[in-house]
């Protein structure tokens, strides 16, 4: 039986705030709990969500009261989080701290403190950053600080992995690529609403659902669901929509989402009179996304940067033909027969959409098969299993050679700077060595921070002794049959 | 009985007379195993008592209808609960209890055959004659029917946003509570015992009177040897009856002939007073538009007069309601808060008048001195201090970089107005002693009147500061806005009204030039305006705080819970603030109870006390008012207004005085209603007249209570 762990997911972003990271954390935790681990979530207090809460499946959420600055990213106070974090970790008997989202300062602090307390740490990066502008440079420094002493890093796509390796100058072997997933049951196409998940084992060919034929003059609906920010490519969208509608008579748009750019869209609609062909729904809740998607045939995703792009997987799972820009990790996500790629240019986008529409009209695309295929590609259980392997690796449950692959021997060339992460020792001097390599001035500064952190840790051990902290009872753990899961997902 | 878990609950009055005689315990049976002992009838046979209970001899010649007892105690009849001081040899109904009330032990030892464990709840019977009673939730000193009207009254006041915000918070909290309801594991239906608590409270309140009644009728029970009276006793008896006859005759005489005349005159007087009051109230509350402020919102005096009139209109109604309680049992506790409120307001007015007389006489005696003082204060603080400060600002004060020309201009302007004003004050000075005298004279209507007048006088005499404040605030605000927009222009941006954000915009050259020069100009002129503005703003704030002090004094004078405090000191039993239990140590009970406890019996003795109302609840409304004032003046909103030169509104009088209305009904009774009420009173008196006859012997029976009750009541 595989060992089970007590895992604490730390991030600034969690429900009730909607978003990709949030649902990722929730789904992953749920699946991990199904696999018999104990998972708690530490995030900051939201409006109307404070204190300690239990979600329905026994997932425990600590909403730590913290000051929130921009877009629910909490104010970076390096050390003030430590006492309460230590208290939670001790009372929950945590042995693995798993931070999410490189923009959440809470996660970084948690990883730092966890290392000080001698826990294993994992970090999951959900976003891409450039190297040019000042903000990203600052973020990269911070990330380097955190990740120079982390046990393992998980990225959602290969592009994300490259980016993270470069940003934090990491050993590529301690960075795993584990994609996001979708709950395929929640994103069923319209035509077979009552479909059991038992058919997940179908191969593509056998008993396919009836193909829906599309006449040459049927109305083709193009769906766009995204927050209307600049980096979501709303400008492209705004520029492309009138031309697409001009080129293809029987098409209409459904746009869901809100943001600063929505005004531009409305302006565009009013200017060349398109009110009857473009429908703006405004913000939709995550559970309504499917209902919006199934109203359309094509999903248009004009994003300018995207680490993974869960939404296009959801769209494909809903049986939509996806037109997306060829940026970031998007090309890795879906096979080419589900997508039409476009360069982030107005003309190219228009042309790609035209190609997609033409293909649909010619009924060349078997969109009704997408659901099954996507279901076999992405499942949270699979993600959970792979994450579990990472946990096993860092906690030494599986041997290092196995974990770091066959070339662990010659990989020494890769890990020039730091020791093997699997055996990363908690000795203060080793950690200081690692931090010192972060830069000329930054290295010294980081070492200072670490030393202060360690002193605080000693003081806390003295002031709030461990035996004064109540151990809280575990939610009854689930036990699963590992082999079945393995067989089901057919992974290694 | 489904919820029978062998728990026997016995309510036992501690102050039942203790004796070693055998007796029958009579009381209520709320449910099986939940009994309430009323009295021990001594030396009677249980079956006689049973029959007597059936035919109701025990409640003979009650002073008031008996049915009311049953309806209020929630039981249809009394039962025999058990026997007292009987040897265990006597075989009885197993559900009966055996009580041993030895004179030695203050706690009776209760045993029951069919109960595995027993709760003995001891309590002390409140004396209805003294208007003592117990209740589960604290007595309400304020009328409760405000809030609906409170909302309707001023939707457009300054408090509005705060209140809305409060309401929002309440709403979210309510939703949380709703969510919490879904969390409870098992929803259990409360057992009969648990539902009985309200009834039991009533029964406790009734216990004293009922016990007295029962004891009075004990003599009628059973075959007691009725020995004939001796002669002497007969003589005495006839004499007493004779005297009673005489008194009753005279009493009738008074009631029939003299009383109606007096009452009629009194009622007529009341009515015409009421009509005049109505008219004055109409004047006071008249407002041109619903938005506009009525007279009573503007001046404190009008407010004060209005309150007094409202009280005068309310008293007769209160009195009528209080009179009605005379022809009911004294244990009916519904009207006690009314009683307290009524006499509280009476007392307050009396105190007010007393203090007022002292104050008024003092003021009248040395009106001239007071007038001089006031005029000196006025000249020193509202004229000279202002002048000196302005002239100080005119020469560069404290190294502030003021613009000389502008400072000179503004200073001269204000100085000129002040000179004009001071000349007006001079003109007014000779009349001041008369005004003071009038104020002093007005204080014979109560000390609150001169205070209100003073606060009005203050606001009238400092009207120039107010206007200065307004003017400087306007200028400052205007200049600030222009500066902000010009600063946007300076940065080459402009505020986009449509999207409510700052957009970048390329201006024409000439726009830029003129805008920049103006910006520089205003920027360097700003400090001058700021210091002047601040000067007047501070003065304004000082005046507002003084007026706030006045208002607080007024509200203290008008609504200090004086009577309640007195009661709290004298007889805490009359202000119930809830109940509390105390678990008594049972081993001492065991020692006290001489019989060794039976094995399966585990008895727990609980002591029930009524906790008097705490002081926080009494002064609750003052806390409320304090909160209001704090929220209005110490809020960041006000600071923001001060900084941006917006007009800081004074606290809306209605909000401040909502405390004061809490003693008055939301809408006062119309003239006709009052007429009906006052006329309904004599009829009730008639009905009450025969009923009030046995009150006398009754009163003779317990003189202490009645004298006590009356004296404390009306004294």
């Amino acid at each position: 039986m595989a060992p089970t762990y007590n895992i604490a997911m730390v991030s600034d972003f969690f429900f009730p705030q909607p978003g990709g990271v949030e649902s990722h954390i929730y789904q992953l935790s749920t699946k991990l709990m199904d696999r018999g681990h104990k998972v708690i979530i530490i995030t900051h207090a939201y409006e109307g969500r404070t204190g300690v809460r239990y979600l329905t499946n026994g997932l425990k959420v600590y909403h730590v009261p913290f000051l929130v600055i921009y877009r629910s990213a909490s104010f970076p106070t390096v050390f003030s989080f430590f006492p309460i974090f230590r208290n939670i970790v001790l009372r929950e008997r945590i042995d693995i701290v798993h931070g999410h989202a490189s923009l959440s300062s809470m996660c970084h602090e948690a990883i730092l403190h966890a290392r000080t307390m001698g826990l294993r740490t994992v970090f999951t990066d959900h976003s891409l950053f450039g190297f040019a502008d000042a903000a990203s440079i600052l973020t990269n420094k911070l990330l380097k600080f955190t990740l120079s002493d982390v046990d393992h890093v998980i990225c959602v796509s290969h592009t994300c992995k490259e980016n993270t390796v470069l940003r934090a100058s990491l050993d590529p072997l301690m960075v795993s690529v584990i994609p996001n997933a979708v709950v395929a049951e929640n994103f069923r196409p319209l035509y077979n609403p009552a479909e059991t998940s038992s058919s997940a084992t179908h191969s593509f060919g056998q008993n396919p659902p009836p193909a829906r034929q599309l006449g040459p003059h049927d109305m083709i609906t193009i769906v766009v669901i995204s927050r209307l920010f600049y980096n979501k490519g709303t400008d492209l969208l705004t520029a492309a929509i009138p031309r697409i509608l001009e080129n293809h008579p029987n098409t209409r748009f459904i746009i869901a989402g809100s943001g600063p750019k929505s005004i531009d869209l409305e302006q565009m609609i009013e200017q060349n009179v398109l009110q009857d062909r473009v429908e703006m729904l405004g913000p939709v809740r995550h559970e309504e996304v499917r209902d919006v998607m199934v109203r359309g045939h094509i999903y248009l995703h004009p994003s300018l940067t995207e680490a993974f792009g869960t939404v296009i997987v959801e769209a494909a799972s809903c049986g939509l033909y996806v037109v997306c820009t060829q940026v970031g990790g998007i090309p890795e996500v879906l096979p080419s027969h589900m997508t039409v790629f476009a360069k982030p240019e107005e003309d190219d986008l228009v042309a790609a959409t035209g190609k997609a529409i033409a293909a649909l009209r010619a009924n060349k695309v078997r969109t009704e098969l997408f659901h099954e295929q996507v279901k076999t590609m992405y499942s949270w259980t699979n993600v959970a299993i792979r994450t579990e392997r990472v946990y096993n690796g860092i906690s030494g449950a599986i041997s290092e050679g196995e974990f770091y692959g066959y070339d662990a021997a010659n990989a020494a060339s890769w890990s020039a700077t730091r020791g093997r992460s699997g055996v990363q020792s908690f000795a203060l001097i080793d950690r200081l060595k690692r931090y010192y390599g972060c830069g000329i001035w930054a290295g010294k500064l980081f070492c200072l921070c670490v030393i202060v952190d360690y002193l605080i840790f000693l003081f806390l051990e003295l002031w709030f002794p461990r035996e004064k902290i109540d151990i809280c009872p575990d939610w009854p753990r689930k036990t699963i049959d590992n082999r079945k899961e393995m067989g089901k997902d057919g992974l290694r | 009985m489904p919820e029978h878990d062998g728990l026997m609950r016995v309510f036992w009055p501690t102050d039942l007379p203790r004796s070693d005689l055998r007796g029958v315990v009579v009381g209520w049976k709320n449910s099986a195993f939940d009994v309430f002992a009323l009295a021990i009838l001594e030396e009677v046979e249980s079956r006689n008592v049973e029959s007597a209970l059936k035919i109701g001899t025990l409640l003979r010649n009650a002073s008031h209808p008996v049915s009311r007892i049953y309806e209020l105690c929630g039981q249809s009849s009394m039962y025999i609960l058990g026997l007292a001081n009987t040897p265990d040899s006597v075989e009885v109904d197993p559900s009966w209890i055996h009580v041993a009330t030895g004179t030695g032990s203050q706690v009776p030892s209760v045993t029951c055959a069919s109960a595995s464990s027993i709760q003995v709840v001891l309590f002390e019977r409140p004396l209805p004659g003294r208007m003592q009673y117990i209740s589960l939730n604290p007595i309400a000193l304020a009328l409760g029917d405000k809030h609906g009207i409170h909302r309707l009254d001023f939707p457009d006041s300054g408090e509005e946003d705060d209140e809305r915000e409060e309401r929002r918070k309440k709403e979210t909290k309510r939703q949380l509570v709703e969510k919490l309801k879904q969390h409870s594991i098992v929803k259990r239906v409360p057992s009969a015992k648990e539902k009985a608590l309200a009834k039991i409270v009533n029964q406790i309140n009734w216990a004293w009177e009922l016990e007295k009644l029962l004891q009075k009728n004990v003599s009628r029970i059973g075959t007691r040897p009725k020995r004939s009276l001796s002669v002497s006793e007969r003589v005495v008896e006839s004499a007493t009856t004779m005297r009673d006859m005489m008194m009753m005759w005279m009493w009738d005489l008074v009631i029939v002939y003299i009383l109606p005349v007096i009452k009629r005159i009194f009622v007529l007087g009341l009515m015409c007073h009421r009509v005049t009051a109505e008219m004055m109230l109409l004047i006071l509350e008249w407002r041109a538009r619903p938005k506009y402020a009525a007279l009573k919102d503007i001046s404190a005096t009008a407010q004060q007069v209005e309150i007094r009139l409202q009280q005068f209109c309310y008293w007769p109604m209160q009195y009528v309601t209080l009179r009605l309680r005379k022809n009911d049992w004294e244990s009916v506790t519904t009207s006690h808060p009314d009683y307290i409120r009524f006499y509280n307001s009476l007392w307050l007015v009396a105190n007010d008048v007393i203090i007022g007389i002292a104050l008024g006489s003092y003021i009248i005696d040395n009106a001239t001195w007071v007038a001089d003082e006031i005029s000196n204060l006025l000249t020193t603080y509202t004229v000279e201090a202002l002048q000196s400060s302005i002239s100080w600002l005119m020469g560069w004060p404290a190294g502030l970089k003021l613009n000389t020309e502008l400072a000179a201009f503004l200073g001269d302007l204000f100085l000129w107005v002040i000179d004009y004003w001071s000349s007006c004050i001079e003109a007014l000075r000779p009349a001041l002693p008369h005004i003071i005298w009038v104020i002093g004279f007005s204080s014979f209507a109560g000390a609150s009147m001169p205070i209100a007048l003073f606060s009005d006088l203050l606001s009238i005499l400092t009207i120039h500061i107010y206007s200065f404040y307004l003017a400087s605030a306007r200028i400052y605000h205007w200049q600030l806005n222009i500066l902000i927009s010009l600063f946007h222009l300076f940065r080459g941006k402009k505020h986009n009204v449509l999207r409510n954000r700052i957009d970048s915009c390329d201006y024409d050259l000439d726009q830029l030039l003129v805008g920049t020069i103006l910006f520089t100009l205003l920027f360097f002129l700003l400090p001058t305006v700021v210091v002047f503005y601040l000067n007047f703003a501070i003065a304004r704030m000082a005046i507002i705080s003084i007026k706030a002090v006045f208002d607080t004094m007024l509200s203290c004078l008008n609504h200090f819970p004086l009577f309640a405090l007195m009661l709290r000191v004298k007889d805490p039993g009359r202000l119930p603030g809830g109940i509390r239990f105390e678990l008594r140590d049972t081993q001492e009970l065991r020692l006290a109870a001489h019989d060794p406890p039976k094995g399966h019996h585990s008895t727990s003795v609980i002591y029930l006390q009524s906790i008097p109302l705490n002081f926080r609840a009494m002064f609750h409304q003052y806390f409320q008012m304090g909160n209001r004032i704090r929220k209005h003046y110490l809020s960041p909103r006000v600071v923001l207004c001060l900084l941006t030169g917006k007009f800081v509104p004074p606290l809306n009088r209605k909000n401040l005085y909502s405390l004061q209305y809490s003693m008055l009904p939301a809408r006062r009774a119309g003239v006709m209603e009052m007429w009906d009420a006052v006329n309904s009173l004599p009829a009730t008196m008639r009905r009450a007249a025969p009923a009030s006859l046995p009150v006398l012997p009754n009163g003779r029976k317990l003189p202490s209570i009645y004298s006590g009750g009356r004296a404390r009541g009306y004294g």
Partner: protein
Amino acid sequence: MAPPSGLHQSAIPSDFETSVPQPQPGLVRSSTAPVNGALRSHRSDPYHLAPEDAFVLPYSPRRLGGFESGGNGSGHESRPRRMGRKDDTSRSRSRRQKRFQKLLWVKQSYPDNYTDQATFLENLQRNPRVQPYDFWPLVADSTVIVQHVCSVIIFVVCFVGIFQERVSPVSIVGWGSFATFLGWLLWDWWVTQEEDQGDAADGIARKGSMRAFREFGPPRRQSSGLGHPTLGTSNVSISSMSNFPSAASSSSNLVQDQHLQRPVIFGHYNGVSSTSLLNPDHAFSRSASSLHSATSQASAAAPARSSAGEEIPGTSRYRTTSPTRGGRVRLSTIKSAILIYSTLLGLSPILKSLTRSTSSDSIWAMSFWLLAINIFFFDYSGSWVGVHKIPVASLSTNAALMASTVLASRLPSTGQVFSLTLFSIEVFGLFPVFRRYARHRSWRYHVALTVLLVLGAGGGVGMIMGDERSWPWKNGLLGMLVGCLISALAMGGCSWWLIGLQKYKNEIYGPWDPARPIIISRRHWDDDQ
């Protein structure tokens, strides 16, 4: 920001604008391919990840660190890829078991943290669009800054002169106004010339911007048609007389694959090629911030401009037909001049006493900082956006004007105040426009102007430095000499230094960078509404 970097950033785009036209964010990684329908079908853009990329054998496997500039590599690499894509499906299916693919949707037999030496970081590129500066163009570009600094110095000199009552304010403002008038006449003459060409070139514009007409009907014809041809021709003219250093510099500053660019530009229809230059938003953002935020700035600025469109009658006014246009322009110019004149006349008495209570030192410090702001935030990019769209860098102009106002308020008499303020308006408000236009007009004027300014500034400083009683012209000449020396040293030294700094440049680009979208039709629905 530090002066050298500022100089660097502002120097590059300035050359793009005046030089060969090209699609707007012309250097974006994702758009180095022409925006051409014929070329779009095959992938000529190697930096994109595509699903197929996982199957084909990469041309030159790269490691961390071992990179040459991605630009040249791209050209060779695109070919074998294109061939390899013919039969990708069959081959990939055969290899699916053993080959590692950079895909997420295939279940592959490698651990999650497996790092494929071949495909890992294959798309990383370093300094893809660093172009080596060469010396003379940089010097030529730095003349703009020298001009501005010199004009500021001249202004300060004038103030000191007035303040020490060595020069009479009236003479200064008189000469200033006279020069301004001359400048205006010259400018007006140029304007009329250009508009004649513009009307002549209207026909070309018709053909060029067909799509614009289709989208936005006849009433907008003039507006959308007007802009391009003038610029189209001007571009042609400039690039034709490319023996001048300016053109040389601009062409040198182009992207490495010019051979690819040029046919595109001229093969491409005129509307598109010139709109990107015409778009004032881009001009602004270019000058204001680095290349990355270009489009963001533009999109932010777009609505503002659109809403500003109605307010300023000028824009709509210029769209009328040519003959009466010039007259109206002159009328409006005269009107605004009169307006400013009277405003100053009215305000100067107040200005005189404005800062009397403030101590002189603080005033000096304040004006110094304001002038510094002016120098640093000045719009050095000679971005040419049409005759009547005078791009005024608001912040710098306002700062200079405020400084002059503050300085003027130190002067004792109203006349001095008035004249100084007026002079400052001429120097900071109008003169830059003239300079820019002169530079756009011909390089010769530009150089002459620069020399004049340097001489004047040096001489003025010399005269101020020197004491009164001795003969001032000696000092003046000395000052001119020194000034010329200093400016020459500065221009040469700074350029040399900047070139020296180039080798420390290390930019990393990859698929993770947010793409910069190419949006063509924005201008249409931005400008006219």
